[in-house]
């Protein structure tokens, strides 16, 4: 009791889960609160992030992309250079360290694109823990390479055939597993979603992105950026980049969602742009749903954005106007994918390719002395085969 009030972002957030999990969430919150203020925990985490994951990641001025788009100066926060190829490991190292502290020997996770699954399997392998990852069978087909990587790392990948066979259903199944094995198992949620304290905890672990970017841009340019741009599925890389700039009122934030085949067609995953508030996966937040409150199937070319919910803090940012949210289509995202590869020699994951695609709209409207920092949340190795299949080359 009493702990729930702190799990709110305005009216969003909360804990809408079966009673069985509430004591586990209370315990997790207590342990996390302790670790948050424990210099020893923070130092240990920082050490792993530095020596094992490759932090700090560079903030790179994308000169050719900037020239190509002809407007604001574009800087890329290179989370794609991290161990396992995406920002996800910032969070999994933190949570798995917490699991070790809590004496849990078994880790479970859900994964969409597979990046969070790989990052969880990696951290579990490094600490010698048992690891089961739930993944929609549709996503397993789209991201075969990551399935194989998880297995190489010693994790079991459990196919989920229910519902739309994507991330949403993988989370359902992971929650069911956790309800069943709650006493022995730590559930590593991969985004700023789920019941309290997950949205706050994952945000804190990912905030290292924004903290570094803030210091780096000041060092490189002597000032703060005008815009932050990041893709939003559940929203962890965006929240990690945005949050440390929360009080910098002149820094505008834009979250880029998956517009799929187009908002009009209804086949998309643009939760904040086109959704309405509701309850899914333990939190009150924006949601893609029908009039009867059933969660709608989503579509995105990118498995990591193919999710009908979004982190509750993003819902709060949207309602208060602290961040703006837009959608770009599959087609535009694929153009962004190629654009970055050809102008900068960086193949982005399809998720941040959405953020890159939005630069085509944003950058040309900006003066040449304006600064845009883009969250490049992951690299595109995992998507190369998928893109080649789509484009038939």
């Amino acid at each position: 009791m009493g702990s729930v009030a702190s799990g709110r972002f305005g009216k969003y957030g909360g804990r809408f889960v079966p009673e069985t999990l509430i004591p586990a969430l209370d315990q997790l919150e207590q342990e996390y609160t302790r670790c948050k203020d424990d210099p020893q925990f923070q130092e240990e985490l920082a050490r792993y992030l530095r020596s094992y994951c490759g932090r700090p990641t560079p903030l790179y001025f994308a000169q050719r992309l900037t020239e190509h788009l002809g407007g604001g100066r574009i800087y890329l926060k290179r989370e794609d250079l991290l161990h396992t190829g995406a920002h996800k490991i910032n969070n999994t190292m933190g949570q798995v360290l917490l699991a070790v502290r809590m004496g849990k020997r078994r880790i479970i996770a859900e994964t969409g694109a597979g990046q969070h699954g790989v990052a969880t399997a990696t951290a579990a392998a490094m600490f010698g823990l048992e690891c089961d990852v739930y993944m929609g069978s549709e996503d397993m087909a789209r991201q075969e390479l990551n399935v194989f990587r998880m297995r190489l790392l010693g994790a079991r990948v459990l196919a989920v055939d229910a519902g739309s066979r994507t991330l949403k259903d993988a989370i359902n199944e992971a929650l069911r597993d956790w309800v069943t094995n709650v006493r022995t198992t730590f559930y590593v949620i991969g985004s700023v979603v789920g019941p309290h304290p997950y949205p706050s905890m994952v945000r804190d672990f990912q905030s290292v992105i924004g903290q570094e970017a803030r210091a780096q841009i000041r060092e490189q340019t002597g000032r703060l950026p005008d815009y932050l741009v990041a893709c939003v599925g559940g929203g962890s890389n965006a929240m990690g980049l945005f949050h440390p700039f929360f009080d910098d009122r002149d820094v505008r934030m834009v979250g880029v969602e998956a517009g799929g085949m187009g908002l009009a067609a209804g086949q998309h995953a643009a939760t904040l742009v086109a959704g309405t508030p509701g309850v899914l996966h333990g939190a009150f937040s924006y949601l893609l749903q029908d009039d009867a409150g059933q969660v709608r199937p989503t579509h995105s070319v990118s498995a990591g954005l193919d999710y009908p919910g979004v982190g509750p803090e993003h819902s709060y940012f949207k309602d208060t106007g602290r961040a703006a949210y837009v959608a770009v289509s599959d087609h535009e995202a694929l153009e962004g994918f190629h654009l970055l590869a050809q102008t900068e020699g960086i193949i982005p994951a399809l998720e941040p390719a959405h953020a890159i695609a939005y630069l085509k709209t944003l950058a040309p409207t900006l003066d040449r002395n304006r600064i845009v920092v883009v969250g490049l949340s992951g690299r595109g190795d995992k998507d190369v085969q998928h893109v080649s299949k789509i484009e038939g080359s």
Partner: protein
Amino acid sequence: MSRLAQVFTRLRASHKTALVAFVAAGDPDLATTAEEVGALSRGGADILELGVPFSDPVADGPVNQRAYQRALARGVTLGDVLDLAGRVRSAVPMVLLSYYNPVLQYGLQRFCVESARSGVDGLVVPDLPPDEADDLITSARPAGLDTIFLLAPTSTDARIRLAAARSTGFIYCVSVTGVTGVRDRVPEELHGLVRRIKTQSPLPVCVGFGVSTPQQARQIAGVADGVIVGSALVSLAEEPQDRIARLEQFVRDLREALDALPAREA
């Protein structure tokens, strides 16, 4: 006194255990559900529990998931289930089980008013812990609906006090850490859990999740005021042949097993 409270008062007087029987509404269609409700009543259920289909039922195992998917494939909504409740209402009290989002989208007040009008006596919302339930309770009380919260083997004494304070009608005790589904045996820790709840609350305690056979029902009747049978009935109904007759017979078997018990201690 609510109709649910009356059931337990009556059963207590005759030293009997309540049988709560669950069906997934709209599986495979609403007309069949109406027939099933009749079969459950004839078989001897004391309380009927209608499950409202939801796309993401995280507290449910595969049997109920499939049932909800079949119902959703037919486009069954919460509004349809309320209409159905109004049509099948009888002397046997009725509880609605729904995940929170369909209720929230329907509008809490409208939902409670229309539930009461349809003859629904109580609400179970498996993903709404009592901490988050202020709004639902505010709408349910004036409508005369009982709010039934769940407790689990992991519940601390503080959680038990909270759920007990906010529950009316009865307390829903989850027998295992896990989701709904058919299971082989009654967990040993159940006895202690029910006793812990009983020391904190005078409300009747009904045990559900995994109660699949008359024998298990009888074991649970030794400790609890009621037995909730769900997935076992739903899986019986997955086989269309003689569905209604088999359902009625199974409920009758459960009833007989419960009634064959020696008189319970108060």
